[in-house]
Protein backbone atom coordinates (compact mmCIF):
# COMPACT_ATOMS: atom_id res chain seq x y z
CA UNK A 1 0.00 0.00 0.00
CA UNK A 2 2.56 2.54 1.16
CA UNK A 3 4.74 1.77 -1.82
CA UNK A 4 2.29 2.95 -4.41
CA UNK A 5 0.21 5.76 -2.89
CA UNK A 6 1.47 9.32 -3.17
CA UNK A 7 2.28 11.26 0.03
CA UNK A 8 -0.85 13.42 -0.20
CA UNK A 9 -3.06 10.37 -0.54
CA UNK A 10 -1.37 8.64 2.39
CA UNK A 11 -2.13 11.68 4.59
CA UNK A 12 -5.72 11.62 3.38
CA UNK A 13 -6.04 7.91 4.22
CA UNK A 14 -4.51 8.33 7.67
CA UNK A 15 -7.03 11.06 8.45
CA UNK A 16 -9.91 8.81 7.46
CA UNK A 17 -8.70 5.48 8.84
CA UNK A 18 -10.22 6.02 12.26
CA UNK A 19 -13.50 7.16 10.77
CA UNK A 20 -13.74 4.01 8.67
CA UNK A 21 -13.00 1.80 11.66
CA UNK A 22 -15.93 3.21 13.63
CA UNK A 23 -18.36 2.64 10.79
CA UNK A 24 -17.46 -1.02 10.52
CA UNK A 25 -17.70 -1.72 14.25
CA UNK A 26 -21.22 -0.35 14.32
CA UNK A 27 -22.45 -1.85 11.10
CA UNK A 28 -20.95 -5.31 10.73
CA UNK A 29 -24.15 -7.09 11.77
CA UNK A 30 -26.23 -4.87 9.52
CA UNK A 31 -23.94 -5.64 6.57
CA UNK A 32 -24.18 -9.38 7.18
CA UNK A 33 -27.94 -9.13 7.34
CA UNK A 34 -28.12 -7.16 4.07
CA UNK A 35 -25.82 -9.69 2.38
CA UNK A 36 -27.64 -12.69 3.92
CA UNK A 37 -24.48 -14.02 5.51
CA UNK A 38 -24.30 -15.46 9.01
CA UNK A 39 -20.81 -15.31 10.48
CA UNK A 40 -19.63 -17.75 13.13
CA UNK A 41 -18.59 -16.26 16.48
CA UNK A 42 -14.93 -16.99 15.75
CA UNK A 43 -15.12 -15.34 12.29
CA UNK A 44 -16.53 -12.04 13.60
CA UNK A 45 -13.40 -10.30 14.81
CA UNK A 46 -11.26 -11.40 11.86
CA UNK A 47 -13.86 -10.20 9.35
CA UNK A 48 -14.26 -6.91 11.17
CA UNK A 49 -10.51 -6.39 11.25
CA UNK A 50 -10.19 -7.21 7.52
CA UNK A 51 -13.07 -4.91 6.59
CA UNK A 52 -11.59 -2.04 8.57
CA UNK A 53 -8.34 -2.41 6.66
CA UNK A 54 -10.06 -2.79 3.29
CA UNK A 55 -12.23 0.28 3.89
CA UNK A 56 -9.19 2.30 4.97
CA UNK A 57 -7.56 1.23 1.69
CA UNK A 58 -10.51 2.09 -0.56
CA UNK A 59 -10.96 5.46 1.17
CA UNK A 60 -8.00 6.66 -0.95
CA UNK A 61 -10.44 7.32 -3.81
CA UNK A 62 -11.78 10.25 -1.77
CA UNK A 63 -8.54 12.10 -2.46
CA UNK A 64 -9.26 12.44 -6.20
CA UNK A 65 -11.07 15.61 -7.31
CA UNK A 66 -13.97 14.36 -9.42
CA UNK A 67 -16.43 17.27 -9.43
CA UNK A 68 -16.45 17.58 -13.20
CA UNK A 69 -16.21 13.88 -14.00
CA UNK A 70 -19.23 11.77 -14.91
CA UNK A 71 -19.40 8.22 -13.47
CA UNK A 72 -18.24 5.49 -15.87
CA UNK A 73 -20.42 2.38 -15.68
CA UNK A 74 -19.17 0.64 -18.83
CA UNK A 75 -15.56 0.90 -20.02
CA UNK A 76 -16.67 1.69 -23.58
CA UNK A 77 -19.46 4.02 -22.38
CA UNK A 78 -21.89 1.68 -24.14
CA UNK A 79 -25.49 1.14 -23.11
CA UNK A 80 -27.37 -2.14 -23.25
CA UNK A 81 -28.08 -3.31 -26.78
CA UNK A 82 -31.75 -3.66 -27.69
CA UNK A 83 -33.23 -6.40 -29.82
CA UNK A 84 -36.57 -7.04 -31.43
CA UNK A 85 -39.23 -8.09 -28.93
CA UNK A 86 -39.51 -11.65 -30.19
CA UNK A 87 -39.45 -14.93 -28.32
CA UNK A 88 -36.13 -16.62 -29.10
CA UNK A 89 -35.53 -18.67 -25.96
CA UNK A 90 -37.55 -21.56 -24.66
CA UNK A 91 -37.17 -22.70 -21.09
CA UNK A 92 -36.49 -26.38 -20.66
CA UNK A 93 -37.59 -26.59 -17.05
CA UNK A 94 -36.60 -30.21 -16.45
CA UNK A 95 -33.02 -29.59 -17.59
CA UNK A 96 -32.70 -26.36 -15.62
CA UNK A 97 -34.04 -27.97 -12.46
CA UNK A 98 -31.56 -30.85 -12.56
CA UNK A 99 -29.15 -28.78 -10.43
CA UNK A 100 -31.83 -27.61 -7.98
CA UNK A 101 -31.49 -28.78 -4.36
CA UNK A 102 -35.21 -29.61 -3.97
CA UNK A 103 -38.13 -29.59 -6.41
CA UNK A 104 -41.56 -31.18 -6.68
CA UNK A 105 -43.88 -31.12 -9.70
CA UNK A 106 -41.60 -28.58 -11.41
CA UNK A 107 -41.67 -26.23 -8.41
CA UNK A 108 -38.74 -25.19 -6.22
CA UNK A 109 -39.20 -26.22 -2.60
CA UNK A 110 -38.39 -23.79 0.22
CA UNK A 111 -39.26 -23.74 3.93
CA UNK A 112 -42.82 -22.63 4.73
CA UNK A 113 -43.09 -18.84 4.34
CA UNK A 114 -46.75 -18.29 5.33
CA UNK A 115 -48.17 -20.04 8.41
Amino acid at each position, binding site marked *: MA*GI*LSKERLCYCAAFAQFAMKIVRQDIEK*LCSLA*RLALEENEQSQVRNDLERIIAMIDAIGSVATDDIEPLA*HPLDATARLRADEVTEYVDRDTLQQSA*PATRNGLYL*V*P*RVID
Partner: protein
Amino acid sequence: MNSAATLAELAAGLAARDFSSVELTRFYLERIERLDATINSFITLTPARALEQAAQADQHRQSGNVAALSGLPIAFKDIFCTAGVRTSCGSRMLENFIAPYDATVVERLQQAGMVMLGKTNMDEFAMGSSCETSYFGAARNPWDQERVPGGSSGGSAAAIAAGFTPAALGTDTGGSIRQPAALCGISGLKPTYGRVSRFGMVAFASSLDQGGPMARTVDDLRLLFGAMAGFDPKDSTSVPTAQATGTEPSSDAPRSLTIGLPREYFAGLADPELAGLYQDARRALEQLGHRFIDVSLPHTDVAVPTYYVIASAEASTNLSRYDGVRYGHRCADPKDLTDLYERSRSEGFGSEVKRRILTGTYALSIGYFDAYYLKAQRVRRAIRDDFLRVFATVDALLTPTTPTTAFPLGQISDPVEMYQQDVFTVPASLAGIPALALPCGFKAGLPVSIQLMGPHFSDLQLLEVGSAYQTRTDWHRRVAPMPE
Protein backbone atom coordinates in the same frame (compact mmCIF):
# COMPACT_ATOMS: atom_id res chain seq x y z
CA MET B 1 6.03 -36.38 -27.73
CA ASN B 2 7.24 -33.15 -26.14
CA SER B 3 5.18 -31.75 -23.28
CA ALA B 4 6.56 -28.25 -23.96
CA ALA B 5 5.35 -28.18 -27.57
CA THR B 6 3.27 -25.25 -28.79
CA LEU B 7 -0.15 -25.46 -30.45
CA ALA B 8 1.48 -24.50 -33.75
CA GLU B 9 4.04 -27.32 -33.45
CA LEU B 10 1.39 -29.85 -32.46
CA ALA B 11 -0.81 -28.76 -35.37
CA ALA B 12 2.12 -29.40 -37.70
CA GLY B 13 2.64 -32.83 -36.11
CA LEU B 14 -1.03 -33.72 -36.63
CA ALA B 15 -0.91 -32.47 -40.24
CA ALA B 16 2.23 -34.54 -40.94
CA ARG B 17 0.55 -37.60 -39.32
CA ASP B 18 3.44 -37.88 -36.84
CA PHE B 19 0.74 -38.66 -34.27
CA SER B 20 -3.03 -38.68 -34.09
CA SER B 21 -5.19 -36.48 -31.90
CA VAL B 22 -6.11 -39.55 -29.84
CA GLU B 23 -2.42 -40.28 -29.22
CA LEU B 24 -1.78 -36.64 -28.35
CA THR B 25 -4.74 -36.52 -25.98
CA ARG B 26 -3.66 -39.78 -24.28
CA PHE B 27 -0.17 -38.34 -23.84
CA TYR B 28 -1.46 -35.29 -21.94
CA LEU B 29 -4.08 -37.21 -19.92
CA GLU B 30 -1.46 -39.73 -18.83
CA ARG B 31 0.94 -36.94 -17.84
CA ILE B 32 -1.74 -35.13 -15.84
CA GLU B 33 -2.74 -38.31 -14.03
CA ARG B 34 0.88 -39.03 -13.17
CA LEU B 35 2.02 -35.57 -12.10
CA ASP B 36 -0.91 -33.33 -11.19
CA ALA B 37 -1.35 -34.71 -7.70
CA THR B 38 1.25 -32.20 -6.47
CA ILE B 39 0.50 -29.28 -8.84
CA ASN B 40 -3.30 -29.58 -8.39
CA SER B 41 -3.94 -27.59 -11.55
CA PHE B 42 -7.12 -29.46 -12.51
CA ILE B 43 -10.38 -29.63 -10.56
CA THR B 44 -12.06 -32.00 -13.01
CA LEU B 45 -10.58 -34.19 -15.75
CA THR B 46 -12.77 -35.24 -18.68
CA PRO B 47 -10.86 -38.14 -20.27
CA ALA B 48 -13.86 -39.86 -21.89
CA ARG B 49 -15.13 -36.69 -23.54
CA ALA B 50 -11.57 -35.74 -24.57
CA LEU B 51 -10.89 -39.07 -26.27
CA GLU B 52 -14.25 -38.94 -28.01
CA GLN B 53 -13.56 -35.43 -29.33
CA ALA B 54 -10.04 -36.49 -30.35
CA ALA B 55 -11.36 -39.50 -32.25
CA GLN B 56 -13.82 -37.22 -34.03
CA ALA B 57 -11.00 -34.82 -34.97
CA ASP B 58 -8.96 -37.73 -36.33
CA GLN B 59 -11.95 -38.85 -38.37
CA HIS B 60 -12.40 -35.36 -39.79
CA ARG B 61 -8.73 -35.33 -40.71
CA GLN B 62 -9.11 -38.67 -42.50
CA SER B 63 -11.87 -37.18 -44.61
CA GLY B 64 -9.68 -34.16 -45.42
CA ASN B 65 -11.76 -31.70 -43.41
CA VAL B 66 -9.36 -29.90 -41.11
CA ALA B 67 -9.57 -26.60 -39.24
CA ALA B 68 -6.39 -25.02 -37.82
CA LEU B 69 -7.15 -25.95 -34.21
CA SER B 70 -8.72 -29.33 -34.92
CA GLY B 71 -7.53 -32.14 -32.65
CA LEU B 72 -5.49 -29.86 -30.35
CA PRO B 73 -6.01 -30.18 -26.59
CA ILE B 74 -7.14 -27.33 -24.35
CA ALA B 75 -8.20 -26.88 -20.73
CA PHE B 76 -10.91 -24.51 -19.51
CA LYS B 77 -10.78 -22.57 -16.28
CA ASP B 78 -13.55 -24.00 -14.11
CA ILE B 79 -15.52 -20.75 -14.46
CA PHE B 80 -16.63 -21.56 -18.03
CA CYS B 81 -19.87 -23.52 -18.21
CA THR B 82 -19.51 -26.90 -19.89
CA ALA B 83 -22.68 -28.85 -20.66
CA GLY B 84 -22.77 -32.10 -18.70
CA VAL B 85 -19.49 -31.44 -16.89
CA ARG B 86 -19.32 -29.87 -13.43
CA THR B 87 -18.54 -26.12 -13.29
CA SER B 88 -17.47 -25.43 -9.70
CA CYS B 89 -15.90 -21.96 -9.97
CA GLY B 90 -13.51 -23.20 -7.27
CA SER B 91 -16.33 -23.00 -4.72
CA ARG B 92 -18.20 -25.30 -2.40
CA MET B 93 -21.27 -23.33 -3.50
CA LEU B 94 -21.08 -24.91 -6.98
CA GLU B 95 -19.39 -28.16 -5.97
CA ASN B 96 -22.15 -30.17 -7.65
CA PHE B 97 -23.32 -27.71 -10.29
CA ILE B 98 -23.65 -29.08 -13.81
CA ALA B 99 -24.42 -26.36 -16.34
CA PRO B 100 -27.15 -27.12 -18.86
CA TYR B 101 -25.19 -25.40 -21.66
CA ASP B 102 -21.68 -24.55 -22.93
CA ALA B 103 -20.18 -21.08 -22.63
CA THR B 104 -19.99 -19.41 -26.06
CA VAL B 105 -16.17 -19.56 -26.11
CA VAL B 106 -16.21 -23.24 -25.15
CA GLU B 107 -18.69 -23.90 -27.93
CA ARG B 108 -16.59 -21.96 -30.46
CA LEU B 109 -13.32 -23.70 -29.60
CA GLN B 110 -14.99 -27.11 -29.65
CA GLN B 111 -16.58 -26.30 -32.99
CA ALA B 112 -13.06 -25.46 -34.18
CA GLY B 113 -12.24 -29.06 -33.24
CA MET B 114 -10.39 -28.51 -29.96
CA VAL B 115 -10.29 -31.29 -27.39
CA MET B 116 -11.28 -30.49 -23.79
CA LEU B 117 -8.90 -32.16 -21.30
CA GLY B 118 -10.67 -30.82 -18.23
CA LYS B 119 -11.46 -27.87 -15.99
CA THR B 120 -8.68 -26.01 -14.20
CA ASN B 121 -8.27 -24.86 -10.62
CA MET B 122 -8.86 -21.25 -9.65
CA ASP B 123 -9.38 -18.89 -6.76
CA GLU B 124 -12.95 -19.19 -5.53
CA PHE B 125 -15.25 -17.21 -7.87
CA ALA B 126 -12.04 -15.79 -9.42
CA MET B 127 -11.38 -13.75 -6.27
CA GLY B 128 -7.71 -13.99 -5.48
CA SER B 129 -4.20 -13.59 -6.81
CA SER B 130 -2.63 -16.84 -5.63
CA CYS B 131 -5.06 -19.72 -6.33
CA GLU B 132 -5.05 -20.33 -2.56
CA THR B 133 -8.74 -19.49 -2.04
CA SER B 134 -9.89 -22.50 -4.10
CA TYR B 135 -12.24 -24.84 -2.23
CA PHE B 136 -10.38 -27.67 -3.97
CA GLY B 137 -7.01 -26.73 -2.47
CA ALA B 138 -4.24 -24.45 -3.68
CA ALA B 139 -2.53 -25.06 -7.00
CA ARG B 140 1.27 -24.96 -7.05
CA ASN B 141 3.79 -23.29 -9.33
CA PRO B 142 5.73 -25.78 -11.50
CA TRP B 143 8.84 -23.56 -11.32
CA ASP B 144 8.92 -23.98 -7.54
CA GLN B 145 6.25 -26.12 -5.97
CA GLU B 146 6.50 -24.28 -2.66
CA ARG B 147 5.25 -21.15 -4.42
CA VAL B 148 1.89 -19.98 -5.74
CA PRO B 149 1.08 -20.04 -9.47
CA GLY B 150 -0.77 -16.71 -9.15
CA GLY B 151 -4.47 -16.24 -9.61
CA SER B 152 -7.17 -16.38 -10.19
CA SER B 153 -6.51 -18.43 -13.37
CA GLY B 154 -3.65 -20.16 -11.53
CA GLY B 155 -4.67 -23.69 -12.53
CA SER B 156 -4.65 -22.77 -16.24
CA ALA B 157 -1.22 -21.13 -15.98
CA ALA B 158 0.27 -23.95 -13.89
CA ALA B 159 -1.15 -26.62 -16.22
CA ILE B 160 0.54 -25.03 -19.25
CA ALA B 161 3.86 -24.46 -17.44
CA ALA B 162 3.80 -28.09 -16.20
CA GLY B 163 3.23 -29.44 -19.71
CA PHE B 164 -0.24 -30.79 -18.93
CA THR B 165 -1.85 -28.91 -21.81
CA PRO B 166 -0.52 -26.70 -24.60
CA ALA B 167 -3.23 -24.07 -24.01
CA ALA B 168 -5.98 -23.01 -21.64
CA LEU B 169 -8.62 -20.37 -21.20
CA GLY B 170 -8.60 -17.99 -18.29
CA THR B 171 -10.66 -15.01 -17.21
CA ASP B 172 -9.34 -11.65 -16.16
CA THR B 173 -11.26 -9.21 -13.96
CA GLY B 174 -8.31 -7.32 -12.47
CA GLY B 175 -5.32 -9.34 -13.68
CA SER B 176 -6.44 -12.95 -13.37
CA ILE B 177 -4.98 -14.01 -16.74
CA ARG B 178 -1.90 -11.77 -16.77
CA GLN B 179 -0.64 -12.23 -13.20
CA PRO B 180 -0.66 -16.08 -13.21
CA ALA B 181 0.78 -16.06 -16.76
CA ALA B 182 3.58 -13.86 -15.38
CA LEU B 183 4.24 -16.02 -12.32
CA CYS B 184 4.28 -19.24 -14.38
CA GLY B 185 6.39 -17.94 -17.31
CA ILE B 186 3.76 -18.22 -20.04
CA SER B 187 1.93 -15.77 -22.34
CA GLY B 188 -1.59 -14.48 -21.70
CA LEU B 189 -3.98 -11.97 -23.26
CA LYS B 190 -6.74 -10.00 -21.60
CA PRO B 191 -8.73 -8.83 -24.63
CA THR B 192 -10.57 -5.53 -25.01
CA TYR B 193 -13.74 -5.57 -22.90
CA GLY B 194 -16.62 -6.81 -25.06
CA ARG B 195 -14.49 -8.59 -27.62
CA VAL B 196 -14.83 -12.07 -26.18
CA SER B 197 -18.26 -13.31 -25.15
CA ARG B 198 -19.00 -13.53 -21.44
CA PHE B 199 -22.00 -15.80 -22.02
CA GLY B 200 -21.59 -18.91 -19.88
CA MET B 201 -18.76 -17.43 -17.83
CA VAL B 202 -19.77 -17.39 -14.17
CA ALA B 203 -20.11 -13.68 -13.33
CA PHE B 204 -17.81 -11.98 -10.82
CA ALA B 205 -17.75 -8.26 -11.78
CA SER B 206 -19.63 -7.86 -15.03
CA SER B 207 -18.19 -4.51 -16.15
CA LEU B 208 -14.65 -5.93 -15.81
CA ASP B 209 -14.80 -9.69 -16.52
CA GLN B 210 -13.18 -10.77 -19.77
CA GLY B 211 -12.17 -14.23 -20.95
CA GLY B 212 -8.95 -14.75 -22.82
CA PRO B 213 -6.33 -17.24 -24.05
CA MET B 214 -3.25 -18.53 -22.21
CA ALA B 215 -0.44 -20.45 -23.92
CA ARG B 216 3.33 -20.70 -24.20
CA THR B 217 3.66 -18.38 -27.19
CA VAL B 218 1.95 -15.29 -28.54
CA ASP B 219 1.44 -17.05 -31.88
CA ASP B 220 -0.66 -19.63 -30.03
CA LEU B 221 -2.65 -16.86 -28.31
CA ARG B 222 -3.36 -15.43 -31.74
CA LEU B 223 -4.70 -18.76 -33.00
CA LEU B 224 -7.01 -19.08 -29.99
CA PHE B 225 -8.11 -15.45 -29.97
CA GLY B 226 -9.07 -15.70 -33.64
CA ALA B 227 -11.35 -18.63 -32.89
CA MET B 228 -12.95 -17.31 -29.69
CA ALA B 229 -13.42 -13.56 -30.28
CA GLY B 230 -16.32 -11.92 -32.04
CA PHE B 231 -19.88 -10.75 -31.53
CA ASP B 232 -22.24 -12.92 -29.52
CA PRO B 233 -25.94 -11.98 -29.40
CA LYS B 234 -26.21 -13.88 -26.10
CA ASP B 235 -23.92 -11.38 -24.31
CA SER B 236 -25.50 -7.93 -24.00
CA THR B 237 -22.06 -6.30 -23.65
CA SER B 238 -20.55 -8.08 -26.66
CA VAL B 239 -19.27 -5.51 -29.16
CA PRO B 240 -20.64 -5.82 -32.72
CA THR B 241 -17.85 -6.97 -35.04
CA ALA B 242 -18.06 -3.82 -37.20
CA GLN B 243 -17.16 -1.69 -34.17
CA ALA B 244 -14.41 -4.02 -33.03
CA THR B 245 -11.91 -3.05 -35.69
CA GLY B 246 -9.58 -0.57 -34.07
CA THR B 247 -5.87 -0.44 -34.68
CA GLU B 248 -5.41 -3.64 -36.60
CA PRO B 249 -2.09 -4.43 -38.24
CA SER B 250 -2.67 -3.63 -41.90
CA SER B 251 0.29 -5.22 -43.65
CA ASP B 252 2.83 -7.98 -43.17
CA ALA B 253 5.65 -5.50 -42.64
CA PRO B 254 5.97 -4.85 -38.91
CA ARG B 255 5.25 -1.21 -38.25
CA SER B 256 7.47 0.93 -36.10
CA LEU B 257 5.40 1.86 -33.07
CA THR B 258 5.81 4.51 -30.43
CA ILE B 259 5.64 2.78 -27.05
CA GLY B 260 5.11 4.71 -23.82
CA LEU B 261 6.79 3.93 -20.51
CA PRO B 262 4.40 5.19 -17.80
CA ARG B 263 6.63 6.55 -15.06
CA GLU B 264 4.16 5.62 -12.29
CA TYR B 265 4.72 1.92 -13.07
CA PHE B 266 8.48 2.17 -12.68
CA ALA B 267 8.68 4.74 -9.88
CA GLY B 268 8.69 2.27 -7.00
CA LEU B 269 10.96 -0.23 -8.76
CA ALA B 270 13.72 -0.84 -6.22
CA ASP B 271 15.03 -4.16 -7.53
CA PRO B 272 17.96 -3.64 -9.94
CA GLU B 273 17.65 -7.18 -11.29
CA LEU B 274 14.02 -6.66 -12.34
CA ALA B 275 14.88 -3.20 -13.69
CA GLY B 276 17.61 -4.80 -15.82
CA LEU B 277 15.19 -7.37 -17.26
CA TYR B 278 12.67 -4.65 -18.18
CA GLN B 279 15.52 -2.72 -19.83
CA ASP B 280 16.43 -5.82 -21.86
CA ALA B 281 12.81 -6.14 -23.00
CA ARG B 282 12.79 -2.53 -24.06
CA ARG B 283 16.03 -3.02 -25.98
CA ALA B 284 14.66 -6.07 -27.80
CA LEU B 285 11.63 -4.04 -28.84
CA GLU B 286 13.86 -1.15 -29.95
CA GLN B 287 15.81 -3.57 -32.13
CA LEU B 288 12.49 -4.42 -33.79
CA GLY B 289 12.17 -0.76 -34.77
CA HIS B 290 9.93 0.52 -31.98
CA ARG B 291 10.55 3.87 -30.29
CA PHE B 292 10.11 4.61 -26.58
CA ILE B 293 9.01 7.76 -24.80
CA ASP B 294 8.20 8.49 -21.16
CA VAL B 295 4.56 9.14 -20.38
CA SER B 296 2.46 9.68 -17.26
CA LEU B 297 -0.78 8.05 -16.09
CA PRO B 298 -1.40 10.22 -13.02
CA HIS B 299 -4.28 8.24 -11.48
CA THR B 300 -2.39 4.93 -11.39
CA ASP B 301 -2.02 5.00 -7.60
CA VAL B 302 -5.79 4.98 -7.00
CA ALA B 303 -6.51 2.16 -9.44
CA VAL B 304 -6.39 -0.59 -6.77
CA PRO B 305 -8.82 1.12 -4.34
CA THR B 306 -11.11 2.07 -7.26
CA TYR B 307 -11.05 -1.50 -8.52
CA TYR B 308 -11.86 -2.97 -5.11
CA VAL B 309 -14.91 -0.74 -4.74
CA ILE B 310 -16.30 -1.50 -8.20
CA ALA B 311 -15.40 -5.19 -8.36
CA SER B 312 -16.70 -5.86 -4.84
CA ALA B 313 -19.92 -3.93 -5.45
CA GLU B 314 -20.62 -5.85 -8.66
CA ALA B 315 -19.68 -9.12 -6.97
CA SER B 316 -22.04 -8.55 -4.06
CA THR B 317 -24.85 -8.03 -6.57
CA ASN B 318 -23.91 -10.91 -8.89
CA LEU B 319 -23.43 -13.38 -6.05
CA SER B 320 -26.84 -12.60 -4.56
CA ARG B 321 -28.15 -15.22 -7.01
CA TYR B 322 -26.73 -17.99 -4.80
CA ASP B 323 -29.69 -18.44 -2.51
CA GLY B 324 -29.81 -22.19 -1.96
CA VAL B 325 -33.07 -22.45 -3.91
CA ARG B 326 -32.50 -22.85 -7.65
CA TYR B 327 -28.99 -24.33 -7.78
CA GLY B 328 -25.85 -24.46 -5.69
CA HIS B 329 -25.24 -25.44 -2.09
CA ARG B 330 -28.18 -25.74 0.27
CA CYS B 331 -27.81 -26.06 4.06
CA ALA B 332 -29.41 -28.97 5.92
CA ASP B 333 -32.77 -28.52 7.70
CA PRO B 334 -33.38 -24.79 7.28
CA LYS B 335 -35.79 -23.52 9.92
CA ASP B 336 -37.12 -20.69 7.76
CA LEU B 337 -36.35 -18.87 4.52
CA THR B 338 -33.86 -16.42 6.04
CA ASP B 339 -32.04 -19.29 7.71
CA LEU B 340 -31.96 -21.10 4.36
CA TYR B 341 -30.39 -18.09 2.63
CA GLU B 342 -27.93 -17.23 5.37
CA ARG B 343 -26.66 -20.70 6.18
CA SER B 344 -26.51 -21.86 2.54
CA ARG B 345 -24.44 -18.80 1.62
CA SER B 346 -22.25 -18.90 4.72
CA GLU B 347 -21.46 -22.60 4.23
CA GLY B 348 -21.09 -22.32 0.46
CA PHE B 349 -18.76 -19.31 0.28
CA GLY B 350 -15.18 -19.16 1.56
CA SER B 351 -13.75 -16.30 3.56
CA GLU B 352 -12.35 -14.21 0.65
CA VAL B 353 -15.69 -14.33 -1.17
CA LYS B 354 -17.48 -13.24 2.03
CA ARG B 355 -15.03 -10.35 2.46
CA ARG B 356 -15.71 -9.13 -1.07
CA ILE B 357 -19.48 -9.46 -0.68
CA LEU B 358 -19.39 -7.48 2.57
CA THR B 359 -17.08 -4.83 1.10
CA GLY B 360 -19.41 -4.47 -1.88
CA THR B 361 -22.50 -4.39 0.34
CA TYR B 362 -20.87 -1.64 2.34
CA ALA B 363 -20.01 0.40 -0.78
CA LEU B 364 -23.57 0.08 -2.09
CA SER B 365 -25.46 0.69 1.14
CA ILE B 366 -27.52 3.78 1.94
CA GLY B 367 -25.31 6.68 2.97
CA TYR B 368 -22.18 5.26 1.35
CA PHE B 369 -23.30 4.76 -2.26
CA ASP B 370 -22.24 8.26 -3.38
CA ALA B 371 -19.00 8.28 -1.40
CA TYR B 372 -17.88 4.86 -2.63
CA TYR B 373 -19.62 3.36 -5.64
CA LEU B 374 -20.44 6.54 -7.54
CA LYS B 375 -17.13 8.09 -6.53
CA ALA B 376 -15.25 5.00 -7.74
CA GLN B 377 -17.08 5.20 -11.08
CA ARG B 378 -15.95 8.82 -11.44
CA VAL B 379 -12.36 7.90 -10.63
CA ARG B 380 -12.70 5.01 -13.09
CA ARG B 381 -13.38 7.53 -15.84
CA ALA B 382 -10.34 9.58 -14.76
CA ILE B 383 -8.23 6.41 -15.00
CA ARG B 384 -9.62 5.54 -18.42
CA ASP B 385 -9.12 9.12 -19.63
CA ASP B 386 -5.44 8.92 -18.55
CA PHE B 387 -5.09 6.08 -21.06
CA LEU B 388 -7.07 7.82 -23.82
CA ARG B 389 -4.85 10.87 -23.41
CA VAL B 390 -1.55 8.96 -23.75
CA PHE B 391 -2.88 6.88 -26.63
CA ALA B 392 -3.15 10.12 -28.60
CA THR B 393 0.66 10.09 -28.73
CA VAL B 394 1.69 6.44 -28.23
CA ASP B 395 0.53 3.18 -29.85
CA ALA B 396 1.15 0.98 -26.82
CA LEU B 397 2.50 0.98 -23.26
CA LEU B 398 5.21 -1.22 -21.73
CA THR B 399 5.11 -1.96 -17.98
CA PRO B 400 5.94 -4.73 -15.52
CA THR B 401 3.08 -7.26 -15.21
CA THR B 402 3.51 -7.87 -11.48
CA PRO B 403 5.40 -6.20 -8.62
CA THR B 404 7.16 -9.47 -7.62
CA THR B 405 7.92 -12.97 -8.83
CA ALA B 406 5.93 -15.96 -7.47
CA PHE B 407 5.72 -15.81 -3.67
CA PRO B 408 5.68 -18.77 -1.25
CA LEU B 409 2.35 -20.47 -0.47
CA GLY B 410 0.82 -19.02 2.67
CA GLN B 411 3.13 -16.01 2.72
CA ILE B 412 0.49 -13.33 2.10
CA SER B 413 -2.37 -13.70 4.58
CA ASP B 414 -3.38 -10.04 4.75
CA PRO B 415 -6.07 -9.39 2.09
CA VAL B 416 -5.02 -5.76 1.55
CA GLU B 417 -1.43 -6.87 0.91
CA MET B 418 -2.68 -9.52 -1.54
CA TYR B 419 -4.72 -6.85 -3.40
CA GLN B 420 -1.46 -4.99 -4.14
CA GLN B 421 -0.46 -7.90 -6.41
CA ASP B 422 -2.89 -6.36 -8.92
CA VAL B 423 -1.35 -2.89 -8.92
CA PHE B 424 -0.09 -3.05 -12.54
CA THR B 425 -2.98 -5.06 -13.97
CA VAL B 426 -6.18 -3.40 -12.64
CA PRO B 427 -5.76 -0.12 -14.59
CA ALA B 428 -6.24 -1.88 -17.96
CA SER B 429 -9.26 -3.73 -16.55
CA LEU B 430 -10.89 -0.50 -15.36
CA ALA B 431 -10.21 1.13 -18.74
CA GLY B 432 -11.39 -1.95 -20.70
CA ILE B 433 -8.25 -1.92 -22.85
CA PRO B 434 -6.37 -5.03 -24.04
CA ALA B 435 -3.21 -6.14 -22.25
CA LEU B 436 -0.70 -8.87 -23.01
CA ALA B 437 1.65 -10.54 -20.51
CA LEU B 438 4.95 -11.87 -21.90
CA PRO B 439 7.86 -13.72 -20.26
CA CYS B 440 10.94 -11.44 -20.20
CA GLY B 441 13.47 -13.29 -18.05
CA PHE B 442 14.12 -15.02 -14.74
CA LYS B 443 15.05 -13.90 -11.27
CA ALA B 444 16.42 -16.59 -8.93
CA GLY B 445 14.88 -19.26 -11.16
CA LEU B 446 11.42 -17.66 -11.21
CA PRO B 447 9.76 -16.15 -14.30
CA VAL B 448 9.50 -12.37 -14.78
CA SER B 449 7.00 -10.78 -17.15
CA ILE B 450 6.32 -7.56 -19.03
CA GLN B 451 2.92 -6.20 -19.95
CA LEU B 452 1.97 -4.51 -23.20
CA MET B 453 -1.22 -2.44 -23.13
CA GLY B 454 -2.88 -0.77 -26.11
CA PRO B 455 -5.95 1.26 -27.07
CA HIS B 456 -9.40 -0.36 -27.22
CA PHE B 457 -9.52 -2.99 -30.00
CA SER B 458 -5.75 -3.00 -30.59
CA ASP B 459 -5.62 -6.67 -29.48
CA LEU B 460 -4.21 -7.89 -32.80
CA GLN B 461 -1.59 -5.17 -32.87
CA LEU B 462 -0.44 -6.14 -29.36
CA LEU B 463 -0.26 -9.78 -30.45
CA GLU B 464 1.81 -8.77 -33.46
CA VAL B 465 4.29 -6.84 -31.32
CA GLY B 466 4.44 -9.70 -28.81
CA SER B 467 4.98 -12.26 -31.54
CA ALA B 468 7.88 -10.27 -33.00
CA TYR B 469 9.33 -9.89 -29.48
CA GLN B 470 9.30 -13.67 -29.11
CA THR B 471 11.35 -14.07 -32.30
CA ARG B 472 14.11 -12.08 -30.50
CA THR B 473 13.87 -13.80 -27.11
CA ASP B 474 13.56 -17.37 -25.90
CA TRP B 475 12.21 -16.86 -22.36
CA HIS B 476 8.88 -18.32 -23.46
CA ARG B 477 10.63 -21.53 -24.49
CA ARG B 478 12.16 -22.21 -21.05
CA VAL B 479 10.68 -25.30 -19.47
CA ALA B 480 9.74 -25.67 -15.80
CA PRO B 481 11.65 -28.39 -13.89
CA MET B 482 8.98 -31.12 -13.93
CA PRO B 483 9.77 -34.83 -14.06
CA GLU B 484 9.20 -36.27 -17.55
